[in-house]
């Protein structure tokens, strides 16, 4: 069964106060980036897994997000990419 690396982004829902993002925005302003208008800090989760296909891996990852990786009350998630790992290492080794 092929192996996949799935990259998942979990971010605080719009409209929910993100004090961490606000602190980072304030720090960026202090460092000379006054153009920054908003920062939101979320979480990047990388899952390596096995699945019959990329579609199957994607579907299972969505289930993982719904059950554990994101809290539907406060967070949204996005499955950014599903990469077959063997293909990646083959490419890396040229």
């Amino acid at each position, binding site marked *: 069964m092929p192996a996949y690396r799935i990259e998942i982004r979990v971010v*605080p829902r719009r409209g*929910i*106060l993100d*004090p*961490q993002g606000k*602190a980072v925005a304030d720090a960026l302003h202090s460092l000379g980036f006054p153009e920054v208008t908003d920062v939101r800090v979320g979480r990047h989760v990388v899952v390596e897994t096995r699945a019959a296909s990329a579609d199957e891996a994607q579907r299972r990852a969505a289930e993982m997000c719904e059950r*554990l*990786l994101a*809290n539907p*009350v*406060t967070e949204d998630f996005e499955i950014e990419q599903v990469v077959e790992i063997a293909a990646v290492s083959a490419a890396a080794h040229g």
Partner: protein
Amino acid sequence: MKFGIVTFPGSNCDYDAYHAVVDQLGEQAFYLWHKDTDLQGADVVILPGGFSYGDYLRCGAIARFSPIMEAVAAHAARGGPVLAICNGFQIACEAGLLPGALLRNASLKYVCEQRHLRVENVDSRFTSGYTAGQIVRIPIAHGEGRYVADGATLDRLEGDGRVVFRYVGAEGGSDERANPNGSLRDIAGILNDKRNVLGMMPHPERAVEPIVGSGDGLALFESIVGAVHA
């Protein structure tokens, strides 16, 4: 009456809960391990404070899937009382026993101090020992205690009288300084729809004798005993 206190890896208020129940209340208590699958006859379950599973991912997110939680959920579904304190409150929300979620304090600071709460509803098995509107002093100790839920949920909680504790100033008034974490509507403690699960961020088990600064939490435990014996 038997209190079952769940110990998760990382729980650190399980002993305080035990002390409150056994030494101050004079009732029986025993610890339930997170891998246990039954409540060993507990009449009341306490989900104590701490940092279960290191609070990795999100507070309570991993503890919620501990084997014992199935038994706790079944107990709650039967109408059995569950007292979920601090990390226990976070776990109960993650488990869907209570609505909403607890997020990082708006200040980003961990806050550990005595706070004033107003008892908003004494018509519950957790608060019958208080008088309506009573101001009590109970300590808080948390970095992620900002209660959030959508507007409809908040309205329902308020309308049903399920907001039982609110952060207030020493005189009982609400203002920004009285709220230590940015909780919506200054919420410090709520009940589930069947009113047998109480979740609260403050620690009543750490306020059961004057020598530690307040004995105001004891009435909460006495209320539970009174309700179950009634």
